[in-house]
């Protein structure tokens, strides 16, 4: 069977790719488009390392076929910074030492960005439950939660 042609927008660029029908969006991002910033931790939607935004909705790219991306807008961690300027979440992850090995970080950043877009002033509890689908084995989450709360505060300040 010949491959499927998909037209989509990824991190602000229109992208076309060829894929097999059974390939997930994650497979295509990493192995076809070589956008390896999005990580695979489990392939079954249990770790959140592959989190991306699909038409402004947070999803696991491992639980979505690449074919479903036709005509959709996808945002990954690779599009978060504006040129050299890090997103406040990225900056606070660094300042709070919210990453150790860093492999879960792309997923956490995308998920946290989705949270702050929806709720600019989340409580600690809201952050914890929103991010429950992102596993981190290094940090015990403490510094991640602090980084998200600090970024939220900064972003609220910037908006004011």
């Amino acid at each position, binding site marked *: *069977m010949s491959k*499927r042609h998909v037209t989509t927008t990824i991190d602000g660029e229109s992208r076309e790719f060829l894929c097999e*029908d*059974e390939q*997930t969006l994650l497979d295509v991002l990493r192995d076809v488009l070589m956008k390896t910033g999005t990580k695979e931790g489990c*392939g*079954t*939607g*249990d770790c*959140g390392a592959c*989190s991306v935004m*699909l038409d402004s*909705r*947070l*999803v*696991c790219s*491992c*639980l*979505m*076929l690449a*074919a*479903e991306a*036709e005509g959709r807008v996808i945002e990954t961690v690779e599009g978060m910074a504006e040129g050299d300027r890090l997103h406040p979440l990225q900056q606070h992850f660094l300042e709070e030492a919210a990453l150790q090995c860093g492999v879960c970080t792309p997923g956490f950043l995308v*998920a946290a960005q*989705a*949270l702050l877009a929806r709720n600019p002033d989340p409580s600690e509890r809201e952050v914890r*439950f*929103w*991010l*429950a*689908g*992102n596993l981190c084995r290094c940090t015990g989450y403490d510094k991640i939660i602090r980084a998200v709360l600090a970024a939220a505060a900064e972003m609220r300040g910037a908006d004011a």
Partner: protein
Amino acid sequence: MEYAAPRSLDEAIGLLSQVGVDARPMAGGTDLLVQLRTGTRRPKLLVDLKQIPGLCGIDCGSQGFRIGAAVSGAEIGECLPLREAWPGVVEATELIGSTQIQGRASLGGNLCNASPAADSVPALIAAGAVCTVIGPGGRREVPVEEVVRGPGETTLSEAEIVVDFRLPQPQEGTGDAYQRMIPRTEMDIAIVGAGVSLRLAESGECLACRVALGAVAARPIRVDAAAEALIDRRPDAAALGELAAQASAAADPIDDKRGTRAYRSRVAGVLARRAAEMALRRAGPRRVAGSPAS
């Protein structure tokens, strides 16, 4: 495996009929793609239902609610009128997986995946939800509790699709709730789930009650004996105790990696009681429109 994204119900049913057992309808795909990866299902054709207008969107009317079977949990959670009317259903739906899963997972998929532990199903059964099923043989209305036959198996015929779910506008004095037991706070499959919907009279007497349990039998079950412990009574501690005992007695679970038979039976009663208590708080004293659900 091939993927198809039909734009109409007719087209979808046509594809499903044509390919037969090797075709599989897909809504959010959050269970199905895992099954593909682990090899537990190997369909030749995946029929994506999310492009079909009839399976999308939520309609809120004076007669009640129509929830498209492919609507994501996140959209359901954002529908304030639905949350106001049926907080238990919405909360149960929101318990399906992570925020990421919520971006995709649907009521149709949660039901038709036919897991005994599906979170939304006991809540929907308790709320009296009915689904619209359309297939080559036409259209029929099926109460949610009649859809699941056993683990991974439904009563739907070949090429039949669950199109939407219908819930009435709740009558005055109605409250519903869903409680589940998982070892963590998130990301687990329910060891036990309990949905309760009930209606109180002005006097405080319970006029109607439906209780449903998940993960304690081969499929989600409605437990009328537990409901009857409250109906036509004041829902006092004794009545709630009876409800719990009946729920435990009705449970017929298995031992597995997630929990033991004894544990599930016992906790089924605890959760049914807790769900009933929450439903009671929501039902009365009469809620003021717009007040936040507890």
